[in-house]
């Protein structure tokens, strides 16, 4: 069976020929679909939890790229146009940063020929690769984790550490949702959450409205650089928790310190495979040293995305 979100939100925005191939191929996948990768004049690839496959003519799956159906330049152009709703100019900023967000929060990564100006990308033309990431909302993904992050009805500032594709964003989204809704069984009231969603990945905003459930007390600052966004939220929206995905730049750390000094709890994620990794990155190392975070959570893909490897109590360890 083709999942409803795919049928409703993604397939209508693909070139009809590609959509038909994907529609036929997906039910045969051994695991849930994660990505649809379309590259001009090359085989169409489906990535699922646990592996990948190419689509052969007729919509069958094959492991052999030589026997796979190829996407034409026109397929790519048409799909890109449809995903941009026929208005590439309206998503100029997004295209420049190499992505589009579809309704439903699905992210489409773009690759092609960059047109540069003064050393910066002005736009992408002749889009030649699309990576359609099927967004998964996993309500309850944070259930086992949350009790470790709450003490005495208070949410503790937390750093989620994970390698790519280990469910970092999904976990962050569910944590935000639960904090915002409130968790009676932990004695946690609903908190005002300010979310800086720089790449529209967490809340999947379209036209400013979150397409994913991020809770009733969450304000989303969409498409905004994290450092500036965090300051804005703290200044004007009186959040009790601020959340952001993938911090790592020095200015992010500075803004987070500001938040902590303002008595706001912080929930952020960072790329890495462990604390040792992060300590090598100057910006994050500074944050860890300052004792800003009370909890660090390590995620992995060991038992599927979102596997909690460890919850570290940074306050007690007195991390140095």
């Amino acid at each position: 069976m083709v999942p409803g979100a795919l049928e409703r939100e993604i397939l209508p925005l693909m070139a009809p020929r590609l959509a038909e191939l994907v529609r036929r191929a997906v039910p045969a996948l051994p695991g849930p679909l994660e990505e649809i990768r379309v590259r001009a004049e090359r085989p169409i690839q489906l990535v699922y939890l646990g592996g990948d496959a190419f689509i052969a003519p007729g919509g069958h799956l094959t492991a052999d790229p030589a026997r796979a159906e190829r996407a034409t330049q026109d397929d790519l152009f048409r799909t890109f146009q449809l995903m941009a709703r026929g208005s590439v100019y309206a998503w100029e900023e997004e295209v420049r940063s190499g992505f589009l967000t579809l309704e439903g929060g699905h992210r489409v990564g773009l690759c092609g020929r960059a047109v540069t100006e003064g050393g910066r990308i002005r736009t992408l033309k002749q889009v030649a690769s699309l990576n359609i990431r099927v967004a998964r909302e996993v309500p309850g993904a944070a259930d086992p984790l949350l009790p470790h992050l709450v003490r005495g009805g208070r949410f503790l500032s937390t750093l989620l550490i994970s390698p790519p594709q280990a469910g970092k964003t999904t976990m962050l989204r569910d944590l935000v949702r639960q904090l915002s809704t409130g968790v009676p069984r932990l004695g946690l009231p609903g908190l005002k959450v300010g979310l800086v969603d720089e790449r529209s990945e967490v809340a999947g905003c379209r036209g400013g409205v979150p397409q994913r459930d991020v809770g009733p007390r969450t304000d989303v600052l969409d498409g905004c650089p994290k450092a500036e966004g965090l300051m804005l939220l703290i200044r004007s929206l009186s959040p009790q928790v601020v959340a952001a995905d993938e911090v790592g730049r020095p200015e992010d750390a500075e803004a987070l310190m500001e938040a902590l000094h303002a008595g706001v709890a912080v929930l952020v994620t960072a790329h890495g495979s462990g604390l040792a990794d992060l300590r090598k990155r100057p910006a994050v190392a500074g944050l860890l040293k300052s004792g800003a975070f009370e909890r660090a959570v390590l995620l992995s893909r060991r038992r599927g995305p979102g596997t909690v490897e460890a919850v570290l109590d940074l306050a007690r360890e007195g991390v140095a």
Partner: protein
Amino acid sequence: MTLKLIGALLTLLVPSWIGFRIAARYGRRPVELRAFQNGLAVLATEVEYGATPMPDALLSAARAAGGIAGAILADAAYRLLEGGGITPGEALRAALEQHREATCLTPADLEILTALTPVLGASDRRDQVRHLRLALERLVGAEAEAAEERRRYEPMYRYVGVLSGLALVLILI
């Protein structure tokens, strides 16, 4: 006698009517070209300053254009809203094709508009505006030419119509 009179009147009226029809086509062409200019100017503004999505941008352009030009732009917008995997360029092309008979535009005029179809909505703001402005300039040129033809041929076809009617009456009487 009465029958003769009616016959003569009809013989006069029909060629005159044909002449006026042809003259009217010369009269309407510059008006339609001007309407398309208004439409494209609004479209360029919507794209440049509003970053308005294409269907909405086409609808405001249609309102600004009015007449048959407005109908074509609106048709393109509705085709786009209907979906089904078509691009804005294809929607505009189909709309132009559909209404081709109803316009007074020459194939060269229509070509200015079809030249937009491969790029419509498919690139960044600056590129879109450049293409729209180019089409606008060409439409202005076509309008000047159409106005000149109108000045020359509009009265002529009226006279030709009426006079050939008269001539026919005289020959037949």
